[in-house]
């Protein structure tokens, strides 16, 4: 198992780990009883699970529901980007965070998926939205509707992400199995599909991973593009804009990376993985954040420019209203959190600061929530006919459902950290500097565990 040494490459994993150390460190969270920090985090998350009715109205038919849907879907994107696009670009540092980011994608999509279902008037007929052979005519879905495209986009996205994530997990679950006994061993045996680590298994695993990465890559761009079509194909001024697809994708990656930061910082602390999820990871992701944040900022300004340039009164008013209308605070919240705040990451010191990163990652996700709220609620509140202009306030029920999905998300994530290795063991082992500092460096004498 020797590994080619790239002399110019910085170490990606700190602490001079041996293969055994890695297995030990990464599998142990699934074996030991939870750390105190995990218990605190889990209790806080579980407290947020709840349900009930909407404050939307005849003018603003979507508000919290779709805002939250788009927000969660956006968050999911970073996981796919890290696992697929960074894999194809051979960004090897990704191994430290890709497993957790993929898990985040799965859980975010689960949270997101609930909103379009809950927001339906007749939830029990939600299956009407799938094109299936039926005795009603047969009656088909409307393939012109962006909502139907959403169904395809999101179900594809979820299945591919799930497969990709689980494929990566198989060798690691086998590692857990090998160390487990009794009932746990049986469960992991079943979950790892009889993985033996033979060359044939590895070869097939590599091939499958590559294929799934190939399938996932366009999804990073397509899913949020299609979500943006919900708005872009409408006739409502402020929604009907061609800039939406790239703008939504950039925003999704932006918010996704911010959420990865939030999770990674909690994870490395709670599971004591500071040596695997290093400051270098944090810094790399902050670079992506400042890039996508700037793209989003340019998109906001372009929108304003085009509204003015269009000479079209409804469009002009829609944007005027965003900035100076009754919801001005959400516009300024969005501008500040998404455009201004990430600019501090130009400073290397802040990029490498855990506290700054944690704080800003939360600020950015608040900002990205505002962005969706601005697009959806503010736009609908004042559209064509002034007689129907309205104001929306969320009810306690809507707030609770949203808080509930946040709770669900973190609960799922924290359970995940307890049952599966949160860092991809097999992949991390492949980036260890075997012949390098590990044995010949100044820490070569470090005692093994």
């Amino acid at each position: 198992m020797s590994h080619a040494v790239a002399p110019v490459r910085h170490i990606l994993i700190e602490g001079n780990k041996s293969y055994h150390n890695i297995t030990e460190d990464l599998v142990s969270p699934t074996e030991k009883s939870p750390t105190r920090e995990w218990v605190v985090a889990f209790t806080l998350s579980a407290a947020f699970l709840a349900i009930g009715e909407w404050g939307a109205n005849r003018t603003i038919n979507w508000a919290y529901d779709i805002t939250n849907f788009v927000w969660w879907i956006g968050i999911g994107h970073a996981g796919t980007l890290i696992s697929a696009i960074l894999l194809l670009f051979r960004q090897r540092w990704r191994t430290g965070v890709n497993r957790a980011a993929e898990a985040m994608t799965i859980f975010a999509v689960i949270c997101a998926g609930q909103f379009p279902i809950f927001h339906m008037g007749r939830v029990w007929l939600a299956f009407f939205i799938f094109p299936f052979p039926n005795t009603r005519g047969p009656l088909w879905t409307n393939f012109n509707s962006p909502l139907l495209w959403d169904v395809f986009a999101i179900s594809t996205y979820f299945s591919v992400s799930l497969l990709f994530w689980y494929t990566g997990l198989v060798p690691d679950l086998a590692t857990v199995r090998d160390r487990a006994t009794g009932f746990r061993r049986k469960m992991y045996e079943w979950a790892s599909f009889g993985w033996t680590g033979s060359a044939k298994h590895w070869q097939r695993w590599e091939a499958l991973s590559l294929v799934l990465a190939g399938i996932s890559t366009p999804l990073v761009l397509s899913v949020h593009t299609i979500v943006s079509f919900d708005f872009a194909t409408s006739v409502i001024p402020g929604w009907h804009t061609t800039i939406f697809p790239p703008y939504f994708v950039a925003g999704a990656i932006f918010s996704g990376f911010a959420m990865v930061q939030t999770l990674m910082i909690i994870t490395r602390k709670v599971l004591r993985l500071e040596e695997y999820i290093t400051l270098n990871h944090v810094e790399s992701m902050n670079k992506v954040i400042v890039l996508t944040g700037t793209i989003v900022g340019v998109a906001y300004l372009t929108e304003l420019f085009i509204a003015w340039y269009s000479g079209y009164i409804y469009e002009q008013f829609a944007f005027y209203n965003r900035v100076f209308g009754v919801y001005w605070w959400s516009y300024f919240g969005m501008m500040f959190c998404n455009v201004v705040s990430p600019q501090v990451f130009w400073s290397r010191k802040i990029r490498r600061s855990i506290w700054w990163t944690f704080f800003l990652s939360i600020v950015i996700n608040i900002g990205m929530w505002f962005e969706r709220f601005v697009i959806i609620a503010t736009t609908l509140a004042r559209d064509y006919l002034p007689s129907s202009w309205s104001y929306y306030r969320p009810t306690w029920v809507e707030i609770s459902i949203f808080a509930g999905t946040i709770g669900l998300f973190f609960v799922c994530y924290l359970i995940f950290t307890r049952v599966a290795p949160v860092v991809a063991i097999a992949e991390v082992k492949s980036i260890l500097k075997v012949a390098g500092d590990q044995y010949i460096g100044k820490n070569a004498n470090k005692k093994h565990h």
Partner: protein
Amino acid sequence: MAEQIIVNKINDILGNLNNTVAFNAVSNQRQGDDRKMEALVAEMNNGQVATAIVWGANPAYDYSGAAFKAAFAKVATRISLNTTLDETTLLCTHAAPAHHALESWGDAEPKQGHISIIQPTIAPLFSTRQAEHSLLEWADSANLDRNSDQPYYQYVRAAWTSAVFNTQSRYSTPAAFWDMSLHDGVFENAPSGRSVSFNSAAAVNTGAVSQPSSSELEVSFYETVNIGNGQYAHNPWLQEMPDPVNRTVWGNYLSVPVEWDGKDIKGWRNLEDGQIVELEVNGQKIRCTVIRTFGQTPGTASIALGYGREAGGCAAGYGVNVNPLLKNEGGFTQYYLTDAKVTPTGDVEKDFACVQHHHTMGVQGKQGDKTVNVDEAVLAFQGSLTERSIIFQTNVKDLDKLETQMEEFHEHSGYLNSKTLYPTNEEYFGTGLKWGMYVDLNSCIGCGACQVACVSENNVPVVGKNEVMRHHEMTWLRIDRYFYGDVENPKVVYQPMMCQHCDNAPCENVCPVNATNHSMEGINQMAYNRCIGTRYCANNCPYKVRRFNWLDYTTADLWPANEERVFHGAGDDTPFYADNLVRMVLNPDVTVRTRGVIEKCSFCVQRIQEGKLTAKRESRAIQDNDVRTACQTACPTGAIVFGNLNNPESEVNKAQKNAGALAYQVLEEINVRPGVRYSAKVHNANEELFS
């Protein structure tokens, strides 16, 4: 009184009497004598009245003199014939409820020369008795045939034979005359030529003319178009019909003037919508909710009669009763009071229910030396309202200018719309039937009759005050009211707004399940049982006419969890629509919608179907009169015309053609191709008087 004499004198001088002001067909509908009522109260007070019979009146609620209740108590036998247990009936010793008007026989002469027969449409639901029958019974009348199935029917018929039959010569037998009058519903008796002249003895006492008061605030009290002075208050359809000016429902609000200070539009004394104030007038105090109203004259406020009911039906508990404030002067009830004081209480009404929160289409005021649209100044965007293609209006003297402007607008819209990449499907709509509507904004008076007719025809649910407050009202047809002109003295335009049945409907392509689609006859239709309630269609509707069943309003499939939230009558445990009596209002030709589906104007598709079947049965082409929508039927001014656009002879086509360039589609330039057209509003006000 003095004012009326002066008006008569002016008419006399102008030669209008017996000419344009005719007295031979007067309306008999509103008659009464405040002085006689006052005298009756005095008699009751003196113990001179042994028996009082109340019928179709509710003086315990609406008589302004507070003395009524005390005086009424002194009457030994108090009988009420009223149909509900209202405030007066509660004070009576006997309640002998009469039939409802729809269960009664009778006759009336609402207008001189128009004698009509009242005919029941339903057998009595409860054990009630016709009021007239009761009176005849108690009077021991010899003309009452007690052995008849319908004694009062016999009575009316006999009366027509003896009193009306002889006034005509068309029908030779009383039976034929009765049958035809009953069939026609009305018998028109050429009014006798009645000529009047001004009695110069009625000296014009100009001193008696009411003078403008020097008080800071004058309050006027008015009857609303929906519930009158309260007699129709217990009809929830009327309660939920927004006031044409304030656009409020379920309650009366103190309208205060709007002021413009060069920067912001504010209510008088910075009062805001929904704020609760204490109104002190005529030595009495009431708490009421404020609404800022454009067009309320500075120095005045107004509030509606008819609210603040204590008993009798669903209106109980909404609004405040202002009758006790009214003053009796010179034998007349005065519907205005001076020296009013308004004090904010610091409270805000939580259920303040108004369906329109933006009120204007560009009202003008001064900003420094410039005249600006002040509401647009508040929105920080000049042109943000006035440049919208929703309302077009002009003074008649500038009509030519508007016509040119509208021709350009049509041309520009046509150019923009021709740029579409997608097929227009024009060929589908060019043949056969293509339904369309035309609304003449010059005729529309904003009364709301169309809205109530629509509610009644289409089983549109009443949702109650709290739900309207949450903007969950369900009306398929609403009347948008916009002010324009001077900020302190604006003009108003009403725009009935219903589904525009767009041929390129933005709602249709976004529905993921095809629940809303287009018929070959140009109707945008809803398949309720396919709808899953994503509400995407409602978002994408530029006219915001789609309505969502947020709760199980009609109790179509009762959701126990919804029961508390849907509308209940006062003190009722069961939801309003769960009551079998209420369910009788439902139109059997129209589906009752369940929770979670979208609904909207269907162009009365059930009436279209009926019309088509009639034409088919008679083996002929369908004509205008075969199909008349509910709103069209109810409109008192004929502002709404409906018909087949592919028939060049149809009324709707002719009306549109007559309007020429003044006929337009709302938001014509966004290429949704609506099936409803409006006419520009042309007003003929003397601008000098306005300025």
